[in-house]
């Protein structure tokens, strides 16, 4: 898996606020811009 942490968004089950998932969804929608 070519994960380069500096350009990866993370979320932790039960630990992270829902907002972090909203940020991920926004990043995906913008095609990673």
């Amino acid at each position, binding site marked *: *898996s070519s994960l380069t942490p500096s350009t990866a968004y993370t979320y932790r*089950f039960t630990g992270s*606020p*829902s907002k972090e*998932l909203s940020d991920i969804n926004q990043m*995906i929608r913008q095609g990673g811009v």
Partner: protein
Amino acid sequence: AQECEDLKAERQRRQERIKQKQSQLQELIVQQIAFKNLVQRNREVEQQSKRSPSANTIIQLPFIIINTSKKTIIDCSISNDKFEYLFNFDSMFEIHDDVEVLKRLGLALGLESGRCSAEQMKIATSLVSKALQPYVTEMAQGSVN
């Protein structure tokens, strides 16, 4: 005058921090109310049907939902111990947590959008501690950050 300017900046910073903390507290209040409502709903359904749902028809919390179009091709690699998964999608997806699902099922009683009926507000305030009830009333009346 300089001290005045510094104090104004300090007040601004504190107001922004308070706004953010209010928003986080509201999110936690919604989470607790939705969770308690879910437990109550499932218990009532099981009492009425006098049986528990079979394991392969339920999804236990905590969970997340990855939502994508049916045309998407998903490639999945799984480690032997199932502790690690790698998904590759050829198209966009969305990720939502279980709180979002409970909100969409109406279990947060409309608090997340500040649109609560009087009856829902009564139920919501009964599900939180006394100290939090003013916050719930505020949210029910529309002041949601």
